[in-house]
């Protein structure tokens, strides 16, 4: 469960202070499929960084699966990112010159999973996203849709509490984007909690709840399915 209470984030750029989030509160229960929407500058990227434990809030509280994230140090944040959050990025962010299966293994390396188990689990995850036959290929040898599937497999591999996707279809054509969204639907049906950050209404509509951000505040929060 995700609990966000009066979350604020202020960026200082020299003398100028920019308040990206001005006090945001909401709760996301396990198994939900949420889209966070908003135009650029609305604070949705900042929201994603905070939810993903890549950054700390200036004030307010963020509980992820009962943990007060605000009280964690860099090392503990790394462990949370490793074990409780699975990232899917717009630009896929796969490691170049590294085979697909090795890419999927990366989070398990930092978790300390044995080599044999890593290999087994990477195969299992790649099979689940339909890429078992591409395991030894490098990222530059596969299509964008396939890259995003690899990224999803990588996000799932440590069995996280939250899948966090930042514009996951932004670099894909509509058809492929729909396939990826279908995959997220599937994962949600299996019980995974999914949060997608997007500015595209058609994508957001495929989630079950939409939180709209505007100028660092929630402008609407509605369940659509």
């Amino acid at each position, binding site marked *: 469960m995700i609990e966000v209470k009066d979350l604020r984030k202020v960026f200082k750029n020299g003398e100028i202070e920019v308040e990206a989030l001005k006090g945001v509160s909401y709760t996301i229960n396990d198994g939900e499929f949420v889209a966070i929407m908003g135009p650029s500058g609305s604070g949705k990227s900042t929201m994603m960084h905070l939810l*993903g434990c*890549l950054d700390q809030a200036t004030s307010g509280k963020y509980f992820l699966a009962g943990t007060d994230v605000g009280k964690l140090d860099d090392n503990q944040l*790394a*462990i949370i990112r*490793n074990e409780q959050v699975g990232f899917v990025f717009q630009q896929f*962010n796969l490691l170049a010159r590294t085979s697909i299966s090795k890419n999927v293994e*990366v989070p398990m*390396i930092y978790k300390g999973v044995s080599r044999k188990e890593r290999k087994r689990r990477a195969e299992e995850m790649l099979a689940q996203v339909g890429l078992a036959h591409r395991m030894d290929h490098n990222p530059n040898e596969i299509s964008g849709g396939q890259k995003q599937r690899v990224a999803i497999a*990588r996000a799932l591999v*440590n069995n996280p509490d939250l899948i966090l996707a930042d514009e996951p279809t932004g670099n894909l054509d509509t058809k492929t984007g729909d396939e990826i969204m279908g995959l997220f639907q599937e994962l949600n049906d299996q019980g995974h909690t999914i949060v997608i950050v997007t500015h595209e209404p058609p994508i957001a509509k495929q989630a079950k709840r939409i939180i709209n951000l505007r100028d660092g505040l929630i402008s609407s929060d509605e369940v659509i399915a």
Partner: protein
Amino acid sequence: MIFETFRIAINGLRTNKLRTFLSMLGIIIGVGAVIAIVSIGSSAREEVTVQISSLGSDLLWVTPGFSAGRATRMESDPRENFTLNIIQYIDDYSPGVTNVVPEVSGSVQLRRGDNTLNSTAVGTSQDFTTVNIYYPERGRFIDQDDLDQSRNSVVLGSNVASELFSDGDPIGQRIRLNYQGRNINFTVVGVMEPKGQGIMGNLDRRVYIPVTTFTDKLSRQNFVDLYYAQFSPGFSSQEARNQIDYFFFQHLGDENLYNIMSQDQILGVLDQVTGTLSLMLGGIAGISLLVGGIGIMNIMLVSVTERTKEIGIRKALGAKKRNILGQFLLESLALSSIGGFIGIGLGYLGTYLVTRIGNWPLVLSPIAVILAFGFSLAIGLFFGIYPAVKAARLDPVDSLSYE
């Protein structure tokens, strides 16, 4: 985990092989130079040591001393104290030495029929052979009768024999020695075995005559150039030296009138010279190692900047600071240690070639190998720390958005 970090680091290096090699070059040259210089130095020293030892082992040399203050107007030439009859006294009063050999030499012209040859005549005694481990091949060496009666007997070096007597056996033949204008006839009694080039010159081009004959008939002065002696079994070089020193001091009353040198001392001086030289050259090579280290730091800094995005991805996937630190530190360590290994190989090859050309014994200094390799590792560590810390400290959000 460390193993995994190591694999990640190696993969990082493999992706840019040429750059990896170029950044290793400084270390390769540095380590190679250190090893080659120190090892070639050791080999050269070994070669000279062997030559000195081949003069005969366990030797002490006593030479007349020349003190700076008295060089021009001395009441007496210190050489004049080096008379032949001292030998008996040295033998009697210094149980620490045996086989005291006098030596006096001068340039001569040898003549047999129409053949002439420039050579060096050495006046010495019968113990010369034992002390120098240098024996006649044919005939005999100078004996006691030769000495007692100042006979005109001569023993030829092997080259002299082959040049003057290319047509037959020289034993029993007569040759004429010309020393400072005086001609004296000698009978050949022996020919020495070939010994070759030593640090004292080519022994094979010399001739040997009784020391008494030299002093009576050639130089017509009753003193010699130097004495040398072997120290007796059971006595250390220091003991033997002290005894001779005591005797000469008692006899001459002035320590400036004589010099005693042992083989240890000569080797010691040699050690000092080669040691200083090796240290100096090794220092220069060390500087190139340092430059190599700076090259590694440079490349690592470039690498960190280039891979900012990768660092961001790894951090997002759960890499802790120490994982990133370890990855880049191991990369620079791998750079310097692989460079070190290649350098060792290159240094060894260089040493091998030089010692082959010089026909020296190959002495690969293990200390130099360990030192150079350890130093290159230390450099990899030292110059790798800053780039690695820089990588580890990168902010995840900033590095993820880096293009």
